[in-house]
């Protein structure tokens, strides 16, 4: 029997000027105990549909029947919401109480469960998500992943049949994402039906079935293997497969017989074994930083939060690093390792407890140093920069910085236009709109343009692609890369190792207030064990390279770019066939 039975669901948002057709006829059937994923880019209608499953929205046309109950029938609403729990994207905005266990109790309290039983359910739910030891903590003291686990416990305490996850991992770091995914899988094993909406294709691979949404309709629904084997569907939906599947497609498209679409890297390796063998390796070119004279150097930097208080915490411990002009430096590290503090100090937003920050050779914390000069040199894009938009129009918001810096009207206009061009936003079309009307990806690019308008030589970005859909991520990374190639120094904090592997010249790894590694990406990501033990991920390509090597392919272990591994594999397989080296395509960096 189908536990979720949605037929031709239509839904629209009525705005002041226009009506947005969010769902144009969604049909979805999910069997009891299934684990299904819904993927699709922003605006495809995923979240709108998710809210139909527990009667937060009611279909304008068509019907949604959950566990035999029609959501349109008003008397079913509360029972449907109890049976189909929902976990939302933003971990902060779904917690009601000031103590973890009180928050978990919120649901059962609402449906009038007797106190003793609530206690029992709360303890049980916290045990399942492994948060028992945090039950008396305040929510804001928890990490993102922990908050989401509490949210899951809150749903579990209502004893639901179905749990709908609406992009629960979008705002989490890799560790938090892992925690949430593991929890979802475990609950599925215990018999719960799981609907998992995500932007991360790797997560969709874990599902029994994948639904692809596009323009408010389900355009495909099949096993992950079938979905990801189908390049047309992915292209139509604007989705990027994970690197190992992308590699599979690239090889396949050029006529290599690489078997059926692999779900895991291990499967890919098994397929590759079909045609293998090669002796020679080509040396990999290493990216060389461009040389310009603006440098940033920190020496013996220490920073302690709230010194001499019970909350005292050392955020930076004797950190020293020099970044040359034109470099693209990635900073990675576990949450709380000091990354954000370091960039705050470089940007002069925090004062070091001790040590020096030299920008262009000058100590920015000296009394006579002109702060305006620093603002000209160093631009900072914080996490979720779109949250800092405030003006009536896009133009005014981007012009805020230059105006504050006392730049003339004419020059400001040129800069606004130029920075919008750099972010690929149409000046004429967008400049008079309110920033709040734009889509998520556009808002972010407008916010970054607001920083670029100051024409800084150094651009610091804190998780610039977090929370964007795959298309948005790829687009923004391309733009950042372009800024780097134009000679700007880029310092980027990120959890996305693949982005750094493809673009950065250098990677700093931070752990417990110190920089523990500082090297070119291929070397840093070559030390996979150390990274993993620091709670960090390695790029997917590095994982593929390692496994391919283990399987006896003679490829270089330090490969981290998709293009490199593609070239090497082709080379080897061609050679295996013809017995001599075939076209030896090089990497074109």
């Amino acid at each position, binding site marked *: 029997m189908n536990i979720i039975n949605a037929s031709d669901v239509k839904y629209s948002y009525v705005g002041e000027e226009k009506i947005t057709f969010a769902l144009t006829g969604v049909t979805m059937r999910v069997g009891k105990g299934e684990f299904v994923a819904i993927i699709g880019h922003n605006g495809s209608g995923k979240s709108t549909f998710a809210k139909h499953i527990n009667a937060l929205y009611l279909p304008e046309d068509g019907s949604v029947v959950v566990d035999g109950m029609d959501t349109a029938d008003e008397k079913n609403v509360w029972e449907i919401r109890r049976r189909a729990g929902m976990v939302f994207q933003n971990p902060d905005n779904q*917690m009601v109480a000031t103590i973890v266990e009180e928050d978990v109790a919120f649901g059962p*309290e*609402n449906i009038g469960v007797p106190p003793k039983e609530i206690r029992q359910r709360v303890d049980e739910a916290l045990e399942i998500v492994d948060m028992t030891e945090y039950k008396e903590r305040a929510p804001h003291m928890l990490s993102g992943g922990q908050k989401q686990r509490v949210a899951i416990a809150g*749903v579990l305490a*209502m004893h639901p049949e179905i749990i709908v996850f609406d992009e629960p991992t979008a705002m989490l770091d890799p560790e938090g994402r892992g925690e949430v995914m593991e929890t979802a899988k475990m609950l599925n094993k215990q018999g719960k039906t799981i609907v998992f909406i995500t932007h991360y294709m790797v997560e969709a691979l874990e599902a029994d079935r994948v639904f692809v949404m596009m323009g408010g309709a389900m355009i495909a629904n099949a096993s992950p293997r079938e979905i990801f084997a189908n390049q047309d569907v992915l292209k139509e939906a604007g989705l990027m497969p994970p690197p190992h599947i992308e590699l599979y497609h690239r090889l396949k498209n050029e006529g290599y017989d690489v078997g059926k679409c692999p779900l895991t890297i291990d499967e890919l390796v098994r397929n590759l074994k079909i045609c293998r063998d090669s002796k020679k390796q080509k040396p990999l070119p290493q990216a060389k930083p461009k040389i310009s004279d603006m440098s940033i150097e920190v020496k013996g930097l220490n920073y302690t939060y709230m010194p001499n208080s019970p909350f005292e915490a050392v955020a930076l411990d004797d950190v020293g690093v020099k970044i040359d002009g034109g470099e693209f430096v990635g900073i990675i590290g576990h949450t709380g390792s000091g990354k954000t503090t370091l960039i705050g100090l470089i940007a002069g937003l925090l004062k070091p407890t001790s040590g020096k920050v030299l920008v262009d050779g000058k100590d920015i914390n000296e009394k006579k140093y002109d702060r305006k000069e620093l*603002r000209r040199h160093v631009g900072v894009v914080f996490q979720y920069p779109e949250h*800092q938009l405030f003006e009536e129009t896009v133009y005014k918001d981007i012009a805020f910085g230059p105006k*504050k810096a006392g730049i003339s009207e004419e020059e400001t206009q040129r800069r606004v236009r130029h920075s919008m061009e750099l972010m690929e936003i149409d000046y004429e079309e967008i400049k008079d709109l309110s920033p709040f009307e734009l889509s998520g990806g556009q808002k972010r690019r407008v916010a970054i343009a607001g920083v670029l308008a100051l024409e800084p030589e150094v651009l610091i970005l804190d998780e610039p692609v977090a929370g964007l859909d795959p298309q948005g991520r790829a687009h923004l990374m391309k733009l950042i890369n372009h800024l780097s190639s134009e000679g700007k120094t880029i310092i980027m904090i990120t959890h996305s190792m693949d982005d750094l592997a493809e673009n950065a010249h250098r990677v700093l790894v931070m752990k417990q207030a110190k920089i523990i590694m500082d090297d070119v990406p291929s070397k840093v990501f070559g030390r996979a064990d150390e990274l993993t033990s620091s709670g960090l991920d390695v790029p997917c390509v590095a994982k593929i390279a390692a496994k391919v090597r283990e399987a006896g392919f003679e490829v270089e272990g330090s490969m981290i770019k998709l293009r490199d591994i593609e070239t090497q594999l082709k080379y080897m397989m061609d050679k295996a066939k013809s017995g001599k080296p075939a076209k030896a395509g090089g990497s074109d960096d």
Partner: protein
Amino acid sequence: MIKNVTIGQYFPGNSVVHRIDPRMKLILVVAVIVAIFLATSWIGYVAILGFLLFTILMSRVNLKFVARGLKPLWFIIILTFVLNTFFYAEGTIIASWWIFKISQEGLYNAIRLAVRLVYLITATTLLTLTTSPIALTDGMERLMKPLKLVRFPVHELAMMMTIAMRFIPTLLEETDKIMKAQTARGAEFDSGNVLKRAKGMVPLLVPLFVSAFRRADELAFAMESRCYNGGEGRTRMKVLKFHYRDFVSAAVVAGLIVFLAFGF
């Protein structure tokens, strides 16, 4: 790190005073306030002082924290003292200078008022020091339950307070972030005259409001999806129950009142 800021002035602990039922504690504070006004003689004041010191000792709260609660009110205490000293006209004059006269009764009255104020503040400070904001809200909601009969929105008020307390740290953190982001774009929050400063707040306040509304929106969805439907038919996980210690503490306060009511 701004998120480590505590709300209110709760001093976590596990003493008897901490563990008294919040409902009882609220009632007892009111009773002690009554007692303070009942006292007329010096013996009475000493008795209350003894009681307050005993409570502080039992609560194991550092005396410094209690004193900190008095700090912002020193000015008012001194002002009442001075006004009462100089403008209490009747009685035996013990000193006079120009238009000022100090009478014995005036001085006595001023000291009495100042002592009362200090006692009042100490008693209420002790309440907030030993009771977490959640317990306080909870206690108030339950004590005010009868007001529901006159359609006073008791539950809604308590829910609002809880949500406010839940989001204060989150919003503080967000304020900090936005301030830094706008500072990096050249905004200044701490220079210029009043008008300039007020204007300077716009780049901070607009994003803060926008985000608060977005949060409210999302929170509403989350609450609804967890079957929240107002206070009707709601149960609570933690049921407040009176214990032995609650009755003992009530007896102590009752004893104090009886002692004072019989003329001390």
